């Protein structure tokens, strides 16, 4: 499979891919430390994903795009070992965070997931908890002590764009919020454990257009500080929200990576004609 490095390909922002750079001009394409090398995934005998090698740029949004069944969600779940919870699921290759293979023996998956958080397709606040408890639940789960929970609470809800709407009812149930607010609550919940990378699996597919736009704004703001990887079916969304895109495809067999580059380039002058056809809506 083709080995694609977004950072090297990006024409405008330099070619640096490691963190040692001292030049602020290339900071935007600094390597986030998250990469996969020849990653494969199986569900039982079904080979779902083949040979994906990709490096993620830091502090930016990378969209994973492609038609249904191309393995983009599977790929996303490989990145924080959620893949292994599916019965009979298997993987090969490497997923590295700062050079360390997260699938290596001896790696504590729980500690690793503190650095690589995830937001799911459907908003799913913990039903028995208040808004406050939902945001702070990650601290309890991971037994993290924080000196000032109140300011962390405010910070996370603010970053998720929800603070103003809920600051007067932090003790209300998370389920009392609208769908879009619930999803932003879930984002705030992921932020509380201060991940370096946030994975999002079609976070807006269950939401109305207005809520979708709010979440997209939130995602862009998040990317000022952390690395976001988002799976999306929606081409407009990919073009609105992402800085980089990785295009996945399947020819009936396992899904594979076609190409990855700056979103602007992917949507105007991609290297592969299949990418052009897909982003123009000719198939998928």
């Amino acid at each position, binding site marked *: 499979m083709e080995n694609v490095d977004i950072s090297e390909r990006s024409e405008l922002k330099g070619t640096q891919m490691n963190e040692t750079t001292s030049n602020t001009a290339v900071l935007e394409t600094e390597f986030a430390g998250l990469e996969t090398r020849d990653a494969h995934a199986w569900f039982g005998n079904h080979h779902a994903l083949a040979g994906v090698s990709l490096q993620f740029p830091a502090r930016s949004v990378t969209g994973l795009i492609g038609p249904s069944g191309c393995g983009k969600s599977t790929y996303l779940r490989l990145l*924080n070992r*959620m893949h292994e*919870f599916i019965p009979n699921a298997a993987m090969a290759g490497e997923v590295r965070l700062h050079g360390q293979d997260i699938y290596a023996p001896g790696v504590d*998956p*729980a*500690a690793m*997931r*503190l650095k690589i*958080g*995830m937001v*799911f*397709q*459907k908003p*799913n606040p*913990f*039903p*028995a908890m208040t808004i406050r408890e939902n945001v702070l*639940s*990650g601290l*309890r*789960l*991971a037994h993290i002590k924080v000196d000032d929970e109140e300011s962390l609470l405010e910070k996370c809800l603010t970053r998720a764009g929800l603070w103003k709407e809920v600051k007067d009812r932090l003790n209300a149930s998370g*389920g009392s919020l609208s769908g879009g607010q619930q999803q932003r609550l*879930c984002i705030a*919940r*992921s932020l509380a*454990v201060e991940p370096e990378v946030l994975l999002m699996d079609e976070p807006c597919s269950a939401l109305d257009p207005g809520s979708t736009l709010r979440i997209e704004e939130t995602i862009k703001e998040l990317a000022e500080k952390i690395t976001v990887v988002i799976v999306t079916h929606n081409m407009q969304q990919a073009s609105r929200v992402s800085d980089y895109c990785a295009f996945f495809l399947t020819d009936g067999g396992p899904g594979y990576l076609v190409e990855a580059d700056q979103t602007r380039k992917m949507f105007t002058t991609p290297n592969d004609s299949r990418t052009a056809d897909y982003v123009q809506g000719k198939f998928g």
Partner: protein
Amino acid sequence: MHVVHSRGDKVFRGIVSAGALTSLILLGLIGAFLLARGIEVFNTSGFKFLTGSNWVAGSEDGVIPNDFSIGPMIVGTAIVSLIAMLFAVPMSMAGALYLEFYAPQNVRRVLVALLDLAAAIPSLIFGLWGVQVFTSFGERWAYFLSDRLGWFPLFSTISDNFGRSPFVAGCVLASLVVPITTSVAREVYSRTPRELVDTCFALGGTKWGAIRTVVIPFGKSGVVGGAMLGLGRALGETIAVYLLLNINFRYTFKILESEGGNVASLIATKFGEATPDEIKALVAAGFVLFILTLTVNMVASAIVTRSTKGAPA
């Protein structure tokens, strides 16, 4: 959904409705029979039937009057069942969580099958096991409790005989209740939305963290319902208690002392040699038990239905 399309449908519908109706009618008839036979006792004794602590079958010439009441038996029923639930509920929760989240696939299959089998074992077998096997362990535990906690009235004892006590009977009842409660709890836990569990992992939680944070709160009302189904069985348990407890008509809250009893075992004990009036009183006691178990079971199934249906989408 209720449109009847053809004759075949009509006939089938008739057959299944008749089946459903029959069991309802049967239940109603049993209740009516118990009430009709026992009503005389309720009329003469009134509320005292439930609170008094005498069980005297009068002589035929009326020199010794009839005096029937089941107060200590009701208290005994409550005590023995409570002890049973105290042991059974945590055991069932732990067992259900193990089966659903920790047991390897093949171990789980075998254990679930065994659990269903255990639920079908007649209580007589549990009673015999209790008398022959468990009593010797139970006595030691009871001795330990009375030795260390004897200053507390509940655990104080007069005699040194710990064998046939409500504590031991409660433990045996617990083993009778565990299969059904575990089975219901496992069912409820297995319906925890996968995404909520995944979220716990994605937040850096461990499996136990996920269980504590979402699975147990989600299954709470279902487990309460399952426990009440088990309680229904414990309340009405006859043979095991009959074999294990010395029936004694005295209010007692000393759970380690060799005396006690429950309503069901009272009926079993007395029925064989009862006078005609005494039989009426026993039937009345049966009616009380009937209402008690029916209520508990109805509440339980309502809770279970609500908790399995009301899962968030």
